[in-house]
Structure formats: structure tokens, C-alpha cells
């Protein structure tokens, strides 16, 4: 067996780690562990100079295993694997200890955090000794892209990819394209016509030679992996089309909150309490009228309906404040004499041109009234015959501290946005994760906001979180750019951490075949052993823990690697107890 020569690098991450973990002491102590040739601490190990130190040490000291203790492996494992490749080592001779996200950032006691760092690094040092070289496997990328959802995000992404000469399959559940934007009149803050923006996009998609469009269509499941996905498109008329593609963009959008359950607002009971989307239709048709055909003299707009309230959704739906101001401005133009009441909780006018739009609106004789959206919702009731209006809104107005009654002939509820009812089915079909609110989770909230944890699957638009049009378009085009980059490269390296069977140990019990979720294992009747198809295997390791003889090895997560990690953790724990 080759001699293990381990290099250990402990990152300060500026002060992110070093404030809470005594990195210098840890580096000194780790140097005493068996097989550790070098143990160093450095300000930013992930920086170019940091990586150069590792490369230089590998060459000078003949290191063959590397441990970096820094941030989460979800952040920089790939970075450091590439460093090893640069130095001529197999990338899997590397292990990371997470002493930032799971140590320095979550603890307040420096002594305890330092002890924890030692345990995690000792575990990594133990583990890396058992690491084996794995050959990378690269797969060719099918240049076609599959886009789910024909709203502004899906259309934008489709055109971006198709214009570069690559094939796009675009599927849309409904019979029309354009999504919510197709239902909008004007857009905030510059009052551009939504129709004038979306119609040319739809026309171009319809006539584009590289886009194959499937309306009234859905998918049940997507099989395969980055570069080589396949699926069947089911159309409502019963037609089935099998398609193959290399990447996927999920742009399924979101839906509006149903305010029927908010008793105070009487939606569904009071005829002239309408949702923002119902009002948008009125604007699109150019007629603002109450249910019995009258011109409303008093119009109230209520914000945060279904948003920022723990009974409904705790999050902010992001677009409603500005849409409310847009309505107030449009009403002011259409009905110059109407009383307009904007009943808001906090005015969130972030973004380019939006605060200016708010300032402009405040000069147009719109009355702004503030309420507590968390604990004290306004109450809408029918007015009495002598009130000279149809409804009254009772508000505990926060700025004056007084309870006031506002007359209204029409009330517009600024309904929040929520995930679509079939969000979970789509997530399962493509193998991506959802947050507690059923929006899809991006790979990294800051640094990778369009990719998902499943390689080759991207998200764009409202399905990730409520967002306005420019953000949706930006995300869609970013996803398109990412996909075009992989297509341009032509191939991509895939994980090789699959399972394999040691035929000498396999007793032929076939337990592994029963537990495998991918039918990746079959039985060789002649040899009486199980056989893993490494293309189908996704490396979950469930077969490994079911195997009674230890014949199945889960590459890079072998029994020995994990057991040695446990020993490393406990070794430090015993030392601590002895010291105490």
C-alpha cells in the first residue's frame, strides 16, 4: 500500500472562521496526526495564491491526499478538486471539513467551536486516507433544451436559445402563451403596455424554426441526467410525443392568492370587492365600473392581501405595492374626480424608477392610509342607505392612531402570489427541491440563483419566488446563457460516485435490487451475483447499507471512509475528556 502523505489547509475566510475558531492552534495540532506531512492556516485558501500554496506543497512534499477546512463542500469542493487536478493528483484524493457554515457561523463559544473544528478536521484526515482515485466520466450534451412554461420567462429563455441556433421544446399547460403578463394592461413604473411587450415575443416563438411548441401539454416524469434527458409530452388531445434533450428550464410561474378565506374583506360576498387581477381585466377592457354598471366615486386599494401575515403567507409578494400605485395612477387618469384610498402596510417601492414612481403618485391626490397587516386587518362592510357610498372600510390607521371609516364603491384587494398547486409534481418529475412555501430552491441563494441541485435543471421566473417582469426575464436569460455555455462545451463531467459490486463477496440475495430506486441493479443468473449499471446509478448508497455482506461499495462513500470519519470525531472527543 502506498504511503499516505496528507496536506491539511485551514482557512481563515478573512475573519469569518478565524474570529470563532483558533485556526493557528488547530493547524499546529492537526500536524501531529498520523500521515499529516504539512498543516497550514491561510487567510483565503480558495483564492489563487491559496490554491497555489497547495499545488506547490503537493509537488515539493510529494503529498497524495489533501484536506481543506473552510466553508461548506457545497461551496468549494469542486474548486479544490480542480486544484488537485492542476497539481497532477486525482480530484477524489480530496476531502473538505465544513468549519464555517456548520461551525464558526453557528456557535458563540470560541473554545467549543475550536474543539468542533478539530474533530471535523480529524475526521476528514482519517477519511481522506481511504479515498480512492476515481476516473472522471464525461458525457456528451444533447443540444436541445426542454422548457416548461410559456410565460414571459419561458418565452424569453426559449428565444435566447433558439436564436443561437439550438433546438427548444417549449411546453405550456394551457392553450395560450404569455402567462400572467398576457393579462396585464400597463406595467410599472414606466407604464409600458404589457401587450406590446408580450405579443411580439409570442409571435416570434410561434414562427421560430428552432422552437417546437406544445400547447395544452404536460409531462409526468423526466428521465436521465445532464446532457441526456428524455421524457414524453402528453397533450390534452391524447397525443404522446417522446423527446430527448440535454437541459431543462422550469418556468412554471405562480398563481394568485384566493382571498375568500379572509373574513374581514368579504370577498365573494360583497360584489364590488375584487382582486387586483380582476381589476387588471377591467383596465385591459378600458372600463372601470361596479357590478351594477355605475362609475365608482370612491375606490380603495388594500395591500398585503395574503402576504406578510402568518395566517396566510409570511413572505412579501414583491410586486403588489408597485402594482397598487400603478392602479392608483391609472384610476386617477380614467376617473379624475374619484376619491382614491391606498390602504397599505409598508410601501415597498424598491427597484429602478420605483421610489420615484411612489413620489409622483403621492402628488396625485391619492390618500395613503397605513394599517397593521399582521394583527389588525381593515374590515369591509356594506354601507347604510344614508352613507352615499356602497361600502365602508373600518381601519385602525397607524399614523394617526385613530379608527376611521373610509367610503368605498369598489375595493381592490392586492392579492399575493403563491406557488402553483402542481409545484410538487413538477419538482418530483425533474428531481429538484422546494422551500416551505413550495417555491423551487436555487443551488445557491447568492452565487447560483438559476441552477438547481440537479445538474442540467434550471429555474426561472415566478416558480422560484414572486418577482417582477425584469427579474423574471433576467433569470430566464441567465438560465439560457448557462445552458448555451454547456452546449458550446459539448460535454460535461458527471459524478462517478456510483455503486459497484465485489463479485467475490456477493451472496446473490438480491436485497440491493429490491432497494434500488432506479432499477440500476440487475442479477447475473449465471454468476449468481448482482450487477450495477453505472449509467443508471445515481449514487444514493441505499444498496450499500442494505447489503448484508459488504459486497456493494458506494464509491467515495465507502464503509471504511465513513467509519474512519466516526473514529476521527470520537478520537478528539476522548482527548478532550482526558484533558478535562
Amino acid at each position, binding site marked *: 500500500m502506498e504511503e499516505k502523505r496528507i496536506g491539511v489547509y485551514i482557512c481563515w475566510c478573512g475573519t469569518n472562521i478565524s474570529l470563532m475558531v483558533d485556526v493557528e492552534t488547530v493547524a499546529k495540532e492537526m500536524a501531529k496526526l498520523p500521515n499529516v506531512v504539512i498543516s497550514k492556516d491561510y487567510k483565503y485558501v480558495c483564492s489563487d495564491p491559496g490554491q497555489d500554496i497547495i499545488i506547490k506543497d503537493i509537488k515539493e512534499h510529494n503529498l497524495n491526499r489533501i484536506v481543506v477546512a473552510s466553508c461548506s463542500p*457545497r461551496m468549494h469542493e469542486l474548486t479544490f478538486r480542480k486544484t488537485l487536478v492542476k497539481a497532477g493528483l486525482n480530484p477524489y484524493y480530496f476531502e473538505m471539513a465544513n468549519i464555517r457554515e456548520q461551525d464558526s457561523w453557528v456557535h458563540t463559544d470560541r473554545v467549543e467551536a475550536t474543539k468542533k473544528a478539530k474533530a471535523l478536521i480529524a475526521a476528514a484526515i482519517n477519511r481522506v486516507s481511504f479515498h480512492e482515485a476515481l476516473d472522471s466520466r464525461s458525457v456528451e450534451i444533447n443540444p436541445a433544451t426542454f422548457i416548461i412554461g410559456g410565460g414571459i420567462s419561458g418565452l424569453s429563455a426559449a428565444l435566447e436559445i433558439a436564436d443561437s441556433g439550438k433546438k427548444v421544446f417549449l411546453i405550456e399547460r394551457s392553450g395560450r402563451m404569455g402567462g400572467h403578463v398576457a393579462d396585464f394592461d400597463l406595467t410599472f413604473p414606466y407604464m409600458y403596455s404589457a401587450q406590446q411587450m408580450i405579443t411580439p415575443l409570442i409571435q416570434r416563438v410561434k414562427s421560430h424554426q428552432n422552437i417546437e411548441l406544445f400547447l395544452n401539454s404536460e409531462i409526468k416524469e423526466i428521465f436521465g441526467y445532464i446532457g441526456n434527458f428524455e421524457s414524453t409530452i402528453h397533450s390534452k388531445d391524447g397525443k404522446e410525443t417522446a423527446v430527448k434533450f440535454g437541459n431543462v428550464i422550469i418556468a412554471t410561474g405562480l398563481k394568485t392568492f384566493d382571498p375568500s378565506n379572509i373574513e374581514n374583506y368579504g370577498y365573494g360576498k360583497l360584489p364590488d370587492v375584487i382582486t387586483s387581477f380582476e381589476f387588471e381585466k377591467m383596465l385591459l377592457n378600458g372600463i372601470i365600473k361596479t357590478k351594477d354598471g355605475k362609475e365608482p366615486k370612491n375606490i380603495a386599494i388594500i395591500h398585503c392581501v395574503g402576504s406578510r401575515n402568518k395566517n396566510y403567507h409570511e413572505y412579501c409578494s414583491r410586486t403588489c405595492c408597485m402594482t397598487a400605485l400603478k392602479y392608483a395612477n391609472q384610476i386617477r387618469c380614467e376617473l379624475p374626480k374619484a376619491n382614491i384610498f391606498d390602504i397599505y402596510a409598508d410601501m415597498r417601492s424598491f427597484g429602478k424608477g420605483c421610489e420615484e414612481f411612489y413620489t409622483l403618485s403621492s402628488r396625485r391626490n391619492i390618500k395613503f392610509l397605513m394599517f397593521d397587516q399582521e394583527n389588525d386587518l381593515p374590515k369591509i362592510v356594506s354601507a347604510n342607505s344614508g352613507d352615499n357610498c356602497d361600502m365602508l372600510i373600518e381601519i385602525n390607521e397607524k399614523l394617526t392612531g385613530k379608527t376611521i371609516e373610509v367610503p368605498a364603491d369598489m375595493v381592490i384587494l392586492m392579492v399575493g402570489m403563491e406557488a402553483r398547486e402542481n409545484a410538487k409534481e413538477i419538482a418530483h418529475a425533474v428531481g429538484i427541491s422546494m*422551500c416551505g412555501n413550495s417555491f423551487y*430552491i436555487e443551488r445557491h441563494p447568492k452565487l447560483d440563483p438559476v441552477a438547481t*441541485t440537479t445538474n442540467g435543471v434550471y429555474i426561472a421566473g415566478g416558480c422560484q419566488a414572486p418577482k417582477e417582469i425584469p427579474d423574471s426575464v433576467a433569470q430566464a436569460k441567465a438560465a439560457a446563457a448557462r445552458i448555451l455555455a454547456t452546449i458550446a462545451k459539448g460535454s460535461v463531467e458527471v459524478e462517478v460516485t456510483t455503486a459497484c459490486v465485489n463479485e467475490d463477496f456477493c451472496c446473490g440475495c438480491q436485497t440491493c435490487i429490491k*432497494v434500488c430506486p432506479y432499477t440500476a441493479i440487475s442479477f447475473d443468473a449465471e454468476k449468481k451475483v448482482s450487477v450495477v449499471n453505472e449509467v443508471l446509478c445515481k449514487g444514493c*448508497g441505499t444498496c450499500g447499507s442494505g447489503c448484508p455482506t459488504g459486497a456493494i461499495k458506494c464509491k467515495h462513500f465507502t464503509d471504511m471512509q465513513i467509519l474512519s470519519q466516526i473514529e476521527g470525531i470520537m478520537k478528539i472527543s476522548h482527548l478532550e475528556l482526558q484533558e478535562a
Partner: protein
Amino acid sequence: MSYKPTIVAFLCNWCSYTGADLAGTSRIKYAPNIRVIRIMCSGRVDPTFVLKSLREGADGVLICGCHPGDCHYHEGNYKCLRRYHLLQKYIQQMGIPKDRLRLEWISASEGKQFAQLVDEFTESVAKLGKSEIRQVMETLT
């Protein structure tokens, strides 16, 4: 001062480890006794890993996976659940209270819940005191 236990945790890469990372990026504080081992799926938790941790003297073992129905590998968490119930019975037969082993579902967005779970489990393990196996080990040496 109360006993400071050592807890070995197995977290699946896709939900629970990501949730634990989120607790970090959100700077949510929790008890420092936990030592996390990352695995791809809770279905990878071989019963040997739990027994090895206890044999080495861990005071508690925590396993976290994706919520039922949300497993990145479809159903690994269900396999884990079955093994967990068997393991709890088994360790009891060896004289180890079943509460030293716990399985919980933590999604990628549940950083706060992960922090709460760690605090709660640390406290309950601290109440159980030094692991029975560690006590025997110390008597023997």
C-alpha cells in the same frame, strides 16, 4: 455545569446538510456538540455507522433526511426510517436508551428548525448523561 455530550450526526446532502448550511448562512446559533458527517442520502446510513458511533463512545446519534415524499432519490428516507425503528429496538437490547438515537426530517429551507432540533437533542442527550458504553470503557481502562 451540565454534561457536554458528543453527538455524531448523519445528514443527507440534498435536504438536511443544505438546511444545516442555511442555518450557517443565516447565522442562527445552536449548541456546539454536534459533529456532522455528510452522506448523499439518509438511505446510506448503514446500521453499522450508528453502532460504530455508539461503540466509539458517542452520547447521541442524529440522522436527518428529506421529508417523506421529498427524497432526492425518491425513497431512501423510507428505507432509513425502517432501519431506524429496528435500530432503536436493537440498541435498547444492548442497554442503551433508545433516545440516544434520533431520526428527523429537515428540508433544505429549514435552517431554523435544524438549529432548534440540535439544541433540543443536545439537551435531551445531556440529561441522559455520559454514554453507557463510555462509562464501561472508562471503567475498563
